[in-house]
């Protein structure tokens, strides 16, 4: 189950991109395998949207290689876009259309559009067919965008911060859509998010991005199992965070400190001893803690 042999749906190799003097993407490589959910996480401005624009072919790879279903999305947009359902954070739907007009309009672009499925989704999402797009609430707008991304059953569902600014009910609809997409016919999902709770629920694979670089990538379970939360105890209260080599982050005060480390458990134990402390507990950190630890480590 966890050993896919099929060709990756998205394959990015050593992709770099600069805007003016700022490096937005720095040697990014990743692979999204078919039938799996790939979660891309990172703080705002980490480069997630820039990366997704390359997958869609809206930006041309200046350095490096981007392949979607084996095609270059800039050279071969039809081969790529006809198989991708895309929902962006700023859902740019035509404001003057009605919901039913939006559906008919979008249907015209996609030979595989499933009218019955679209109607099911519209009812499930509670969208009034006669409502103008511009009168929809933020949540309804997102649902309309999701509907047209799903209704032709794309092989790849590509979501850029889909839950951003939405209430829990709409977020649930989006998560359900992701789950349905992989559960049915083993299609693939690639999504970016800063909501780690959602990523933890639905992602098979994970990549963590900071300042245009991927610092951590792999199956979610492996990422979680390779990180440790260590409780360190010092005989003498420490006025400032003690220097312990090999750990990502350290927080606490006085005698007790919490460290997050990646893999190097024995090293961290030895380094703690050298710093005059000992490890009194070893626990599993949440994805949230892992993310914050990397953010701390990368900002130093």
């Amino acid at each position, binding site marked *: *189950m*966890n050993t896919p042999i099929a060709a990756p749906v998205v394959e990015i190799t050593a992709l770099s991109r600069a805007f003016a003097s700022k490096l937005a993407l720095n040697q990014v490589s990743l692979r999204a395998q078919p039938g*799996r*959910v790939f979660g891309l996480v990172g703080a705002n401005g980490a480069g997630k949207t820039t990366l997704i624009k390359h997958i869609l072919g809206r930006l041309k790879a200046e350095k490096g290689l981007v392949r979607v279903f084996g095609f270059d999305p800039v050279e071969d947009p039809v081969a790529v876009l006809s198989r991708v359902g895309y929902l962006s954070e700023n859902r740019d739907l035509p404001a003057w259309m009605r919901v039913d007009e939006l559906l008919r309009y979008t249907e015209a672009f996609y030979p595989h559009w499933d009218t019955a499925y679209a109607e099911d989704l519209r009812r499930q999402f509670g969208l009034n067919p006669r409502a103008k797009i511009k009168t929809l609430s933020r949540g309804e707008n997102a649902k309309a965008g999701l509907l047209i991304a799903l209704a032709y059953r794309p092989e790849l569902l590509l979501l850029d911060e889909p839950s951003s600014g939405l209430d829990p009910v709409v977020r*649930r609809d989006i*998560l*359900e859509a992701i*789950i*349905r997409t*992989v*559960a049915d016919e083993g299609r693939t999902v690639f999504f970016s998010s800063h909501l*780690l*709770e959602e990523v*933890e*629920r*639905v*992602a*098979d694979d994970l990549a963590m991005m900071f300042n245009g670089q991927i610092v951590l990538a792999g199956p*979610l*379970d492996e990422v*979680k*199992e390779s*990180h440790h*939360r260590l409780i360190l105890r010092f005989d003498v209260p420490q006025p400032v965070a003690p220097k312990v080599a090999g750990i990502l982050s350290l927080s606490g005060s006085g005698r007790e400190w919490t460290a997050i480390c990646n893999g190097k458990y024995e090293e961290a134990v030895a380094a703690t001893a050298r710093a005059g402390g000992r490890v009194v507990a070893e*626990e*599993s*950190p*949440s*994805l*949230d*803690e892992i993310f914050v630890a990397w953010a701390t480590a990368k900002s130093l």
Partner: protein
Amino acid sequence: MQLHVSTGDGVPIYLQIAHQIKYLVASGRLVPGDEVPPIRVLAHQLLINPNTVARAYLELEREGVVHKRHGSGTYISDAGSPLARKERLKLISERIDALLAEASHLEVDPQELLRLIKERSQSIQPKEIK
């Protein structure tokens, strides 16, 4: 079958599911022959990736807690009982650990604790028979 997953703690979701199903077996709320929900149904119910549910079931199958029937579903195994006993002992051990920690905190030594347990056990017995 009511399961809950939490993303706050560090335990991988597939392990949370496996643990909870083992707990339900150990506590008798799932008995041999009971069917566990199909992967897709549980994935929708818990709002998690179906691959994660599949991995939990695979783990349980490997440990002999459940078995698949061809073309049908996944069921609690008869062989569940020896493991269920192990699980029951594990559950009670966790409670004992908590009790020992509390006792140590209140300066009650293990010998005294044992004596107290026996005493309590005797005082509870008649009530249980009734």
